[in-house]
């Protein structure tokens, strides 16, 4: 399989944060259908995107991730009713902080993926990986003075 | 007593086994001593962290008394030796800070020494009467 790194020395490190109901379900569906996602994408499962602490995203972006994507249930589908709405606000907040400080709000993505959407999950992983590859390395990950 | 007459307010930390028992005894044997002390019973004098003495002092107590068993008699064998070291630290601190050491006192009072309770409280009350109220009692910027 061609990865985003083909013909390009830079292979981004991607953290893909998935909620344990829909996002992870999407990944499971993908695997049941034999779909592949890029190997540079690492999955991090949380119970609900609403329970994802902002600090975890920040730490990933400082310590090594070139990009962080977050996927939870579609609006209205949250297992905990409103976790994804809160997550959306929290991610919006984080993106705003990163953007205001010029740390690249594009390095953080938020997209809903449902349990059955294996194709969408795989596409998102690949698309985000390509997107980050085009952005280039995250300068924070190599800085000693963070 | 007129409203502005000064009544010393002493906080006493008494260990359960010796000093508190002695205070009981003093009462039972009708020893007379001034009603200036508020007793806080602690299981051992070494339960008294130095900052408790500081808190009482800064909170406006005219004197703070720590009373425990005589050296060698501690119910927990070594507690009062530790109290002694802590108190030495407190004394040294109060001295260095110019707060004087008259308002803090350590006393060994055995379970049978009801009369010493009266002596110690009487003596401390006299000291406080002599040096006057603790200025922390009214200070606003603490």
């Amino acid at each position, binding site marked *: 399989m061609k990865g*985003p790194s083909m013909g390009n020395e830079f292979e981004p490190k991607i953290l893909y944060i998935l909620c344990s109901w829909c996002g992870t379900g999407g990944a499971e569906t993908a695997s049941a259908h034999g779909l592949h996602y890029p190997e540079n994408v690492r999955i991090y499962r949380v119970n609900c995107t609403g329970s994802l602490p902002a600090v975890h995203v920040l730490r990933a972006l*400082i310590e090594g991730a070139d990009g962080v994507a977050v996927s939870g249930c579609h609006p209205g589908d949250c297992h905990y009713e409103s976790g994804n709405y809160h997550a959306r606000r929290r991610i919006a907040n984080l993106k*705003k902080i990163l953007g205001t*400080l010029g740390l690249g709000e594009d390095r953080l993505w*938020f997209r809903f993926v449902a349990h059955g959407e294996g194709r969408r999950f795989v*596409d998102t992983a690949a698309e985000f990986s390509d997107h980050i590859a085009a952005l280039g390395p995250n300068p924070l990950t190599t800085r000693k*003075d963070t | 007593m007129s409203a502005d007459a000064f009544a010393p307010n002493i906080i006493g930390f008494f260990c359960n086994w010796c000093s508190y028992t002695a205070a009981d005894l003093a009462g039972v044997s009708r020893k007379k001593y001034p009603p200036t002390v508020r007793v806080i019973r602690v299981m051992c004098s070494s339960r008294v962290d130095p900052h408790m003495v500081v808190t009482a002092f800064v909170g406006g107590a005219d004197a703070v008394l720590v009373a425990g068993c005589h050296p060698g008699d501690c119910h927990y064998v070594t507690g009062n030796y530790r109290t002694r070291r802590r108190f030495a630290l407190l004394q040294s601190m109060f001295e260095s800070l110019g707060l004087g050491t008259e308002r803090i006192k350590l006393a060994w009072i055995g379970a049978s020494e009801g009369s010493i309770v009266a002596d110690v409280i009487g003596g401390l009350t006299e000291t406080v009467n002599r040096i006057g109220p603790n200025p922390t009692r009214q200070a606003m910027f603490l």
Partner: protein
Amino acid sequence: MNGATVAAPEGVREAITDLLKRGLSEKLWDAALVPARVPAGDSFAWLLVRDGSVLDETLPLPPVMAVQGARAIYRLARRGVTGKVAAVLRPCEVRATIELAKLKQVDLDGLVLISVDCPGALPLKAYLDDPQKGDADFEKLCSGDDSAAREVCKVCHLFSRPVSDLHFATFGMDSGKSCVVAGSDQGRLLLEKLGMAKAGSLDKWERAVAERQEQKKQARTKAQATLSQDVAGADKLLETLSHCINCHVCRSVCPICYCRQCYFESQAILMPPENILERARRKGGMRLPTDTLLFHLGRMSHMSLSCVSCGACEDACPSAIPVAQLFSMVGDATQSQFDYEAGRSVTEPLPTVTYKEDELAGLVAPYTETYDAREASP
């Protein structure tokens, strides 16, 4: 708009003190929380005053903001107060108090919030160095020359009329006069009880405030654009934070950072040596203490939605980092996306506790149905 005109021949501070005294003697409140010069004369501290005679030694609207008023109220009224307490605050202190109330850290019952038009405050360190000069500088500040003011004060557009119970209007008023404006039912009731409910025109004040607000807003936009050029981007941001020594004083003086124990001082970020060595090895080295940038960004993610741009953090920073300007810029950005303004209203919910089902459409990365990595790559 109307308000009660009070004579303030010696300045608004005296008018406030008089009001506090009247309130105490007429049992409208049982105590007052008001700044007073400390015995050494070099700074100010909050006093909870029970005895009216002490009020002569207090100074509402001091030249510096030593302890942020909301922080004082947090320590006073977290579990409520006995009776009623009237607190004299700067507008940013009122706004922070409102945020703390929404964060359930201050019980507003029993508090009477009194505010005053704020000309700004001086940098704390400059004042400590020379209180006399500081007092003179503050006089200048009051007469409109804000060159000596703190950077965040220079661009503060929320200097007047917070959601307090009573507000002393001074800007644009004839000298020797001030106006007390009620901002709540409690305030209106108090003015009635004080026999101060009679009407006086506030047109001049409103015009002056609107004009100043416009100026400050422009200055704010400009200052933030300049700041952004100086600090945005990994290089510049880390350069800005390079002198940070992780003392966390910025957080401990912040009125919004109410946590008894900060996440960034907890077990959660305490790592075993293997972890630290591994992280250092990955980058060839690591500054210590660890997680300096994470602390600042993380703190932003925790409190910037409630940041009132009071500048307490910058005043306290031992390394002269423009923390307040940084946080205020980020706070403006994060708050505006939710159309929120910290401290604007007690009833408006915090952005983090509410949501709309249909919002932030632009945030969610649009799904390109046809996207396929294998096809996209050459």
